[in-house]
């Protein structure tokens, strides 16, 4: 440490130089993050059977293949399965997670072995346990119960893995909630229920929606756990794409990937706007 200290006190970086160096590093990092995504998008327009460089031209044939009238039926069914599962599980996680956040933030449970701290940890567990282990473990339970591969079992699993996000986002909003507003409403004669609907709920709702949107995306994108939970007929979009990649080169993967990137980015920007509203 002594050596480093002597060294660092003798190196005098000018403000401009070190900042520029950091900026170049950050821009290179963006290149690293976005070039692969750009390559997928670019190669989705190749007329070639094999997505490689150089591209002999530009063609929309792979988009034509995934869109009506000659769309891939399995692909569309996987897409709808994903959308249904993401919608249902974000609603489920939204309800269960919001309730839990209210319970944890607003109540003293007075149970010695169940402190708020332990509850917080418990609600983060689905995020912390290695995903592959959650995947195989829940699949084992499902097959024991005889519900393995069913649509609703996948929804239930997705509620489990998205709850941590809803609980975290909603409780951080509840912690920042000024309860004197509720007191004021009640002092002015509002009933407890009316206070909830007219004061509490409108303030908390952006947080709940933000959490649900997050849950939706997590569910829509989830692969590792879902791969072990679905079977023929309940395959989600990521699982379908994965098997497409594994079984060989299908150039329409790039077109599908591009559509997914476009969709995810739209949802992400909406999500960021929403969460900024939450943070403000």
């Amino acid at each position, binding site marked *: 440490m002594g050596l480093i200290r002597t060294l660092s006190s003798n190196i005098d970086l000018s403000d401009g130089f070190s900042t520029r160096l950091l900026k170049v590093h950050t821009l290179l990092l963006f290149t690293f993050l976005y070039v692969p995504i750009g390559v997928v998008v670019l190669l989705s327009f190749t007329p070639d059977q094999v997505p*490689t*460089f150089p591209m002999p031209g530009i063609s929309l044939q792979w988009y034509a293949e995934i869109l009506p009238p000659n769309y891939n039926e399995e692909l569309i069914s996987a897409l709808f399965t994903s959308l249904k599962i993401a919608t249902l599980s974000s609603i489920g996680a939204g309800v269960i997670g919001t309730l839990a956040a209210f319970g944890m933030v607003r109540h*003293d449970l007075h149970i010695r072995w169940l402190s708020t701290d332990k509850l917080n940890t418990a609600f983060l567990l689905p995020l912390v*346990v290695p*995903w592959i282990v959650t995947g195989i473990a*829940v699949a084992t*339970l499902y097959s024991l119960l005889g519900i393995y591969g069913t649509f609703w079992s996948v929804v239930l699993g997705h509620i489990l893995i998205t709850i941590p996000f809803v609980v*975290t986002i909603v409780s951080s909003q509840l912690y920042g909630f000024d309860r004197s507003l509720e007191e004021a409403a009640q002092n002015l004669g509002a009933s407890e229920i009316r206070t909830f609907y007219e004061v509490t709920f409108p303030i908390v709702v952006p947080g709940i929606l933000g959490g649900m949107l997050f849950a939706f995306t997590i569910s829509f994108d989830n*692969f590792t756990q879902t791969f072990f939970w679905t079977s023929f007929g309940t395959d989600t979009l*990521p699982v379908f794409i994965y098997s497409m990649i594994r079984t060989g080169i299908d150039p329409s993967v790039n077109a599908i990937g591009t559509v997914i990137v476009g969709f995810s980015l739209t949802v992400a920007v909406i999500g960021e706007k929403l969460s900024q509203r939450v943070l403000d």
Partner: protein
Amino acid sequence: MSIKNKFDELNRTASVYFKREEGRLGLLEILPGITLITILLGGSLGIVLLYSFLDPAPVSAESTFTLQHYREFFETGFYLSVLLDSFIIAVITTAAALALGYPAAYYLTIMDSKWKSLYLLLMILPFWINVVVRTYAWRLILGSNGLINYLLVDITGVINSPLDLLYSKSAIAIGLVHVFLPFMVIPIYISLNNVDRSGIEAAKNLGANKLVAFSEITFPQSLPGVAAGVLLVFVMSFGAFVTPSLLGGQQNIMIGNIIGQMFNELQSWGLGGAISVIFIALVVTIVYLFNRQIGLDELYGSGGDA
């Protein structure tokens, strides 16, 4: 963990902000969530633990208690060597993500506010894009007909024959860094953003140059974020499944792929269970030792119940 830290901090603020209510309603509100986690996650982990001691597993009339799955794991060098490989890949991924992520997170905190929100958005956006698609993208870059070989062989002619980049441990590590980088940058950015600026100014007024001010004041205060990022990236890349299976090929697999194979293709739920139990035990031990070594509790201040 940063999220937990945030909770503790918020808890403390909360006790000042408003009074908590007494009564059973809170328990009722928590019940659905806690039941789901206990039964679905706790129950299923319990079954995996049970199966790891049974032969044959899953349960049948002939199932008996046995330690043979654990014996098989330790006596077959293959599983241990995959576990070691996975550990090394996870450590390299974590180190690379830290080396790449820290300077970027630091730049985000000192940069002009005009571009800041755009840079932050660009840093977070990849997190929203599907992992399968992002991993697949690296096949188009590292493959023998990929972008890098195209640039090296066809365009610049630096080399004559394409390099074998895909299906290697490096390819796995590159893919993992790409996938998990936001999990490193965001916690570091949050803790750097909370650094008390007046301390830095004071140090500079007392004659410290930028580097000394950074290493003595800024860096120590960013350690909770570093610790959180390191833990998240390490744990997630140690248990990675999709990245090694798409970028590692047959030769380079990680422990997650073994566990997956045991349950899917091989139907060896007993051995798969034993490997899962050993893997979880190892992860928990590493996280525990890391916490003790780094002294997370001290870094975070006294946590405890609010």
